């Protein structure tokens, strides 16, 4: 498989939904496979909240977040398709975000424009133009990436042939927003946060970021999955991360949270959770989902997991039913998924067949 990673400069202004603008911006992008002569085999893969452009292959000891799905003869077969995977604006893996510098050479920190999902779509539309891609064969993603895929199909109906919306919703729920606010509050209350200017003090609110991620991580798993994996097992003393840990699950969350806090930026965390909170595809359409989906020309596949309590199956069904009402071609697949919300990341034969059949059908 041909793999390329490029930081691509888009030298035009991006006017954000908030009214703020970015004079220019960079998008860290992975490419897997080859664009054919007709340029009609391009697939845009959209990562979830804390993901990155690194979707497939092993790099610096890390395996891409959808490695089992992207590659030769895999679910998205790179012998046929040209996969483009972009690190979203506002994130912290190479694309423009709070860590980059503004036109005056100052680091944005907490002053990066507050983005919305639609801004990501706009930024990627500019990227597609630059790459000469007039129509995606498929735009697909899970969670926040699924919302982004849906936004693509609504915003640029002529540019999307098929759209895959995995473990996602047409809008975030009050509970989603509430949990995100707790996560943000934990970061803000870290004494090293310095109102988001922590880098100026050579600090980072790692304690807050870690705790926020620990809470977030719980919402990505299911109760059943946690019981099966950890149950009430006690942590053995040798590998305890902290003194007062009793159970394995505590140690696991401490470990995962700590790892995450080392590699993620707190301002990005706050910004990206806000992006999620603001998402409501029916906003601007009199809150009618059916009207919002009216524009879509793409064939739609919605997949939900019964073990997902972040975006429960009712969210997926709602998108499918509204699509059918709007006379769109939409399919809905419901799987148990063993991993709660995170199920969309894990290989499963039925799940992968659904995606593969959808992508490859004539």
């Amino acid at each position, binding site marked *: 498989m041909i793999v390329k990673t490029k930081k691509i400069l888009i030298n035009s202004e991006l006017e954000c939904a908030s009214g703020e603008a970015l004079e220019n911006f960079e998008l860290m992008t992975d490419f897997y496979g080859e664009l054919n002569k007709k340029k009609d085999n391009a697939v845009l893969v959209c990562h979830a909240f804390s993901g990155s452009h690194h979707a497939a292959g092993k790099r610096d000891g890390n395996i891409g977040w959808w490695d089992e799905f992207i590659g030769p003869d895999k679910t998205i077969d790179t012998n046929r398709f040209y996969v483009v995977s972009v690190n979203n604006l506002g994130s912290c893996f190479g694309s423009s975000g709070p860590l980059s510098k503004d036109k005056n050479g100052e680091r944005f920190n907490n002053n990066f424009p507050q983005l919305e999902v639609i801004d990501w779509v706009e930024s990627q539309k500019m990227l597609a133009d630059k790459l000469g891609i007039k129509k995606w064969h498929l735009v697909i993603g899970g969670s926040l990436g699924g919302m982004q895929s849906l936004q693509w199909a609504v915003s640029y109906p002529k540019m999307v042939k098929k759209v895959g919306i995995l473990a996602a919703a047409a809008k975030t729920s009050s509970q989603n927003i509430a949990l995100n606010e707790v996560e943000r509050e934990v970061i803000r209350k870290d004494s090293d946060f310095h109102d988001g200017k922590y880098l100026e003090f050579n600090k980072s609110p790692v304690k807050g970021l870690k705790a926020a991620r620990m809470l977030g991580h719980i919402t990505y798993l299911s109760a059943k999955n946690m019981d099966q994996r950890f149950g009430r097992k006690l942590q053995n003393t040798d590998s305890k991360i902290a003194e007062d840990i009793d159970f394995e699950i505590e140690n696991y969350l401490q470990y995962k949270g700590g790892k995450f806090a080392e590699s993620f930026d707190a301002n990005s965390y706050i910004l990206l959770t806000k992006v999620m909170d603001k998402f409501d595809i029916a906003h601007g359409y009199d809150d009618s989902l059916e009207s919002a989906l009216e524009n879509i020309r793409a064939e739609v596949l919605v997949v939900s997991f019964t073990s997902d309590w972040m975006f429960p199956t009712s969210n997926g069904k709602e998108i499918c*039913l509204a699509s059918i*009402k709007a006379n769109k*071609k939409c399919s*809905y697949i*419901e799987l148990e998924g063993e991993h709660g919300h995170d199920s969309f990341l894990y290989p499963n034969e039925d799940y992968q067949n*659904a995606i593969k059949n959808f992508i490859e059908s004539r």
Partner: protein
Amino acid sequence: MKSDFKRIIEKWIPQNTKVLDLGCGDGDLLEHLKDSKNVNGFGIEIDISKANECLRRNIPVMQCDIDEGIKDFDDLDFDIAIMANSIQCLKNPNLALQNILNISNKCIVTLPNFAHWSCRLDLFFGKMPVTKNLPVPWYETKNIHLCTIKDFEELCNNLDLHVIEKLYLNNNFKESTLTKLLPNLLAAEGVYLIERK
């Protein structure tokens, strides 16, 4: 699905209509109707591998239980619904029929006749029927509300439904003088096109 059966259903489906297939299996009927009648089809199928087959054929499908599914469908609008050999698997066939006719102008129902002589014979010898169109033993069958041709027509009458067309078929999916003469005894399958009065 048997091709004779498909041909029968096809006759009742007008061109360019919006069709809902409840229990659509691998989507072969909808694919056939797409090719022959240019219908805009949508299927419901509980079995994931069959639903995945629909995706492969590019037939839109909702993978869910019919009972659960139609509850959420209240404001959808179809020209014709097809319920081929699935009414006897539903929790509340009477409510389901009414719900289906809320979202679809017409409905095609096909059902195995539990009063067919072969079933009667099995029961006479004290056994649950295992026949050509009811091949699964009682402990494995999904059929929880089996009925006879007489029962179904009585239900339509009670629910104030109009039977536009009906066919009484033998085991070879053919209507014969015999099946017409004594449908409840000699027809293996009843096929109906119904609507609200």
